[in-house]
């Protein structure tokens, strides 16, 4: 893709906004449509555009495959960690009411953190899949 100057310039301009929109969907999911899964998919689209325009080798300089693996495991860990935290605080698994003194605040904290875990896993897994596929297609 060395010659597609216009695509590269427009893509470079677009990526930050795609990612910003992903973060908006992530943290605004309580109030509007969206949530962790959608946000993760949109955030990963930023990396997808980057891989399409600049090749998987330059994307891997930003996020390495090992790093993505760690993040995708971390997302599950964050989610399950909230469940374990609520167990330790005396509630049932994933009962957010006990996470704070006030049940509603607890629900807010629980949902935000859990959605963040979902977003981490989805974004990193999608990017991981793409990188693996792209690497396999590389002539080497």
């Amino acid at each position, binding site marked *: 893709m060395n010659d597609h100057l216009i695509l590269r310039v427009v893509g470079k301009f677009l990526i930050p906004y795609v990612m910003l929109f992903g973060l908006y969907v992530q943290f605004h999911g*309580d*109030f509007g449509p969206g*949530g962790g899964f959608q946000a993760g*998919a*949109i955030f990963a*689209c930023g990396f997808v555009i980057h891989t399409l325009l600049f090749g998987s080798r330059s994307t891997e300089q930003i996020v390495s495959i090992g790093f993505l693996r760690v993040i995708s495991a971390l997302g599950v860990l964050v989610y399950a960690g909230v469940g374990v935290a609520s167990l330790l605080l005396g509630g049932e698994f994933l009962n957010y009411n006990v996470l704070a003194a006030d049940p509603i605040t607890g629900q*807010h904290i629980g*949902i935000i953190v859990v959605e963040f875990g979902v977003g981490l896993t989805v974004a990193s897994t999608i990017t991981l899949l793409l990188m693996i596929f792209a690497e396999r297609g590389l002539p080497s």
Partner: protein
Amino acid sequence: MMLAHLIDIFLLVFLAVISVALLRIKDLLTAVMIFGIYSLTSASLFMVLAAADVAFTEAAVGAGISIILMLATLAITGREEKIVERKFKLLPLIIVSITGATLLYGIRDLPPFGVASNPAQVHVAPRYIEQSAVETDIPNIVTSVLASYRGFDTLGEVVVIFTAGIGVALLIGRRRRLLTAKEASRHE
């Protein structure tokens, strides 16, 4: 009202046309593109049904990411479908006809579309709609159901996505490491 019906009919007919086109096309690259259009049309349909969250997902995953993954696969495998000589087979036709007839017969027992007294609307949905704002103070009921009421299900989904990623990484993600190991042994 009339316009809404027109949009529904247009989208559904368009979906049917795309499906037929998908079946008939031999060029896999074109098929992937058409699949993207199918996903985008489905996303519009979900939007018409006021399911913004689902439309979001369909547009991002169906029309965006899965298309890119398929293109990446095509880059490895090649874009022409293998031509298989087709013979007319009676048994599959009979099985498909019977299944289709059974499904069409089963449609008669389904509750009418979108009626408030349907089983799906009277089970736990009223509880969510009435109590979600009180119990979680979150305006988007979809989020409160997914993340709080059905938190355990969503945990399962996240684990499924994680497992899928790890599975792909284990199956086809090891090529480069093997290569570099080979190169290292060659240099020794």
